[in-house]
């Protein structure tokens, strides 16, 4: 069963990655076509084309959206390649950065920002990249679902932890009652599922009694 699930995830990843590559071709065509318009405008005297400035602004708008599309494609492409190797060496700093980019939009809809505080050194663990991202995302979702707009989530990568993992810190003006917030987060429907995913990695997830947040440990948890 697990092998079949792995194949399904790999299949979804492969197809999604292929489409992100094709999207890059589409974006490249839009970029070069508008770039050509821009080049031609640059050599056209203003008096010969009275709408030159408005046209240039419109081109700049399209090019801005192309840059946005490229960034989104890149994020989706990296995510789609996650299941390429079911268990592999993962740098937790990279994983935190990638996940924060993927989570950014979801958090923004709640008015919450996500930041990463990487470790000074690379923190390599051998794990399932898909499940690691899934556990971290679910944990973040449990938090931002109970945070007010203007809040901030910080993903700290712990190099000196034993075992290595993440410490998620929630901040916000409304966060004053630690016990109430903990009950809301750990009472979420997703929380026990996230803990199960962490356990399936050989790790664990637990509320950080010292503050507003939780800890997600990778394999070899104490």
């Amino acid at each position, binding site marked *: 069963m697990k092998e079949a699930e792995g194949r399904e995830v790999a299949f979804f990843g492969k197809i999604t990655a292929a489409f992100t590559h094709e999207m*890059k*071709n589409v*974006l*490249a065509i839009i970029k*070069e076509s508008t*770039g*050509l318009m821009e*080049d031609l405008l640059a050599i056209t005297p203003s008096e010969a084309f009275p709408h030159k400035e408005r046209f240039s602004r419109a081109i700049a708008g399209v090019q801005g959206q192309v840059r946005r599309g490229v960034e989104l494609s890149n994020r989706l492409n990296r995510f789609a390649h996650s299941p390429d190797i079911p268990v592999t060496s993962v740098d937790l700093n990279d994983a935190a950065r990638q996940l924060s980019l993927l989570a950014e939009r979801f958090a923004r809809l709640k008015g919450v920002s996500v930041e990463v505080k990487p470790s000074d050194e690379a923190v390599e663990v051998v794990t399932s990249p898909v499940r690691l991202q899934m556990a971290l995302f679910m944990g973040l979702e449990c938090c931002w679902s109970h945070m007010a707009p203007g809040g901030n989530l910080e993903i700290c990568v712990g190099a000196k932890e034993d075992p290595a993992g993440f410490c998620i810190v929630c901040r916000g003006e409304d966060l004053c009652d630690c016990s109430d917030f903990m009950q809301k987060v750990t009472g979420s429907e997703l929380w026990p599922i996230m803990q199960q995913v962490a356990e399936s990695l050989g790790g664990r997830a637990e509320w950080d009694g010292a503050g507003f947040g939780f800890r997600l440990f990778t394999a070899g948890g104490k």
Partner: protein
Amino acid sequence: MAKFNVLLVDDEEELVNALAERLQIRGFNAEIALNGEQALQTVQDRPPDVMVLDLRMPGIDGLEVLRRIKKTHPRIQVVVLTGHGSEKDREIALRLGAFDYLQKPVDIGDLVQTLMGAYQHEADLNPT
């Protein structure tokens, strides 16, 4: 720097047409080929100084074109420009002798700099 010849190889016709025009505006002699077979034929007829090569194309793919060009026309510098690239493709392309490996979409300024670097590289290797 002398005006030099660039061959753009990609099966995305609208992309290579727009790129070719943009390079021509900047003073390059730019020609296009829409697949690997066309690229190899153009190289036989009118060898360019620098080739910009996509990797994923129907028929003979970009890596095979690169392999054959480096065997028959090693002085042609090849810049890979792909939207499908992986780290493995990059390693293979550079090992096969590609001058550089760029991802689509590319900034025209970066492409021009890379083309000039490739041309200069060849001029430094084989001064006339």
